[in-house]
């Protein structure tokens, strides 16, 4: 058989269930709504970095599962998160992406978050501190203590990233949520304060999981001349691709040969703390977070799913807060050469997922997207995606291979789980 007809195209691949997914998971409106409700509204999501909230009264705004969120640093320097929604008439309180409340706003006094609509004001702990003409309108029927902001779970963790959850009952810390996946980079990121030096965003016509898949799998090295020329040796192909509970993975390191790419140089002098020279680690966290440390520059991708075929990706670059001006500039150049919007790799990755998005519309004939490469859990093994979709399937109770059916564990993971239970004496 060479090319295939409809029935052959739609036939179950000769791989184990769990080693492919149905493209419907990337285009279906109902599945997307299910994901917002059962995944994005329930888990920890990093939303920004603490260096974006340097001073007391500074704020950042963002969106999680369509909910407008504001993160503020109080005068006690604690970072807190709230729904960015006025309890009076549901207006979005803060419209700017960032700023500082030390200065007043046209409707509000300094050091308060004030809704411009009717000038209700809130302090940095979310307490309502002013209801305009309260006595005249509400007499003694309503007071400030009854109309505070909706506070959200918030932690600053892992090199100063700010994590928020819409789920009051999440019951686990970010550390517990990470399940060990962050440990490989924790010494490098926690040694001294980090600072954001790069930010840009892209809205791409593809499902958010396609971007996460691309971050999880390195088999697409063939897309990148840069990766092939600076990698592709024995040590590269031996990099481990390790799965963790909760759908997270990380990718082990090797020494990148930056000198092999014309115009590129070793990053040895500016390695992050505890990182061997020119090494490169990657962490992909469920449901859509990427930490990527290439020697001298840390990249972090945060995703905001906008629809089945639309995702906003915020790209950040970070260095050490203690950088000299010269070192910072070098880090920025290292970062941009590969990962900036005009860099060599990012444009190529975004082109590829745009192509996937174009081909996976809701009415399309089903595509069986293959995640079945096995290479002893090394760099081109598709273990990362299998691991991700195991968690995805559990949380949605849908089979990634046939999303209209209920979830069944991937046989190999089921076996591993049984072995772990047996070893634990269960």
């Amino acid at each position, binding site marked *: 058989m060479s090319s295939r007809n409809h029935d052959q195209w739609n036939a179950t691949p000769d791989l184990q269930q769990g080693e492919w997914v149905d493209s419907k998971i990337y285009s279906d409106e109902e599945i997307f709504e299910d994901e917002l409700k059962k995944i994005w509204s329930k888990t920890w999501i990093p939303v920004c970095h603490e260096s974006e909230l340097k001073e007391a009264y500074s704020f950042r705004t963002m969106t999680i599962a369509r909910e407008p969120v504001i993160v503020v640093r109080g005068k006690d320097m604690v970072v807190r998160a709230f729904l960015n929604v006025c309890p009076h008439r549901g207006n979005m309180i803060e419209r700017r992406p960032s700023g500082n409340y030390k200065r007043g706003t046209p409707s509000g006094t300094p050091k308060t978050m004030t809704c411009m609509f009717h000038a209700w004001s809130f302090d940095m702990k979310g307490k309502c501190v002013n209801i305009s003409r309260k006595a005249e309108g509400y007499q003694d029927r309503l007071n400030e203590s009854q109309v505070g902001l909706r506070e959200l779970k918030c932690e600053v963790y892992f090199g100063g990233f700010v994590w928020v959850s819409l789920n009051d009952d999440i019951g686990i810390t970010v550390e517990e949520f990470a399940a060990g996946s962050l440990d490989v980079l924790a010494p490098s990121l926690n040694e001294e304060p980090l600072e954001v030096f*790069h930010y840009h965003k*892209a809205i791409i016509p593809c499902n958010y999981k396609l971007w996460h898949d691309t971050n999880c799998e390195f088999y697409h090295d063939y897309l990148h001349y840069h990766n092939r020329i600076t990698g592709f040796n024995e040590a590269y192909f031996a990099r481990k691709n390790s799965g963790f509970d909760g759908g997270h993975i990380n990718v082990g390191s090797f020494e990148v040969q930056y000198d092999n790419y014309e115009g590129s140089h070793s990053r040895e002098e500016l390695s992050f703390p505890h990182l061997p020279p020119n090494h490169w680690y990657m962490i992909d966290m469920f449901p859509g977070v990427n930490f990527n440390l290439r020697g001298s520059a840390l990249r972090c991708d945060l995703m905001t799913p906008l629809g089945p075929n639309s995702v906003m990706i915020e790209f950040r670059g970070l260095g050490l807060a203690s950088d000299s001006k010269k070192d910072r500039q070098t880090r920025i150049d290292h970062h941009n050469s590969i990962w900036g*919007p*005009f860099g060599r790799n990012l*444009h190529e990755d*975004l082109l590829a997922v745009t192509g996937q998005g174009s081909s996976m519309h809701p009415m399309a004939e089903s595509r069986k997207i293959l995640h079945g490469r096995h290479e002893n859990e090394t760099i081109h093994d598709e273990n990362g995606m299998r691991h991700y979709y195991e968690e995805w399937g559990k949380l949605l109770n849908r089979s990634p291979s046939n999303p209209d059916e209920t979830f069944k564990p991937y046989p190999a993971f089921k076996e591993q789980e049984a072995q772990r239970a047996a070893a634990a004496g269960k």
Partner: protein
Amino acid sequence: MAEIKHDLKEQVRELIYNTCIHLDDHQWEHWHDNCADNFNYAIRAFSPEVQADIKYHGGDKEYMQSITSMLSKHNSDQSPLRRHCTVYRVDVAADGKSAAAISSLAVYQTQLDGINSHVDAGTTSIFLVGRYNDKFIIDGDSIKFEDREVRLDTRRLDKGTHWPI
């Protein structure tokens, strides 16, 4: 003297406009030829999200030459970019040895292969807007770029590009 300065201003304008044609048409070597040896290039924007000036791309002449020489090895969106540039102001130094210019810039992208070519090819949209902030070295009849800052207003850059702006 005033006439000489006027001529220099005209030459600077002409250089900026000709460079737009070179960049539109991927005549990278012509562009590099019009840059001084100590040329520096940067694409920057202020990000109100992180309250910082961000450098998106750039380097010295050698780096920009290596970037353009490697383009054929990379997978790129080949949708053409066209610049609409208006030189707002040219200031020539009193000694006639340097100049600075500010130009308004809009770059249009006409889709070719960036999305689904059957549907989207031929569709034009604004890729980015901003300004060119240029500095020049003048040596007799020779005027060369010493510095180009592409100062962007646009910060949502979606797929981005491999091409200098």
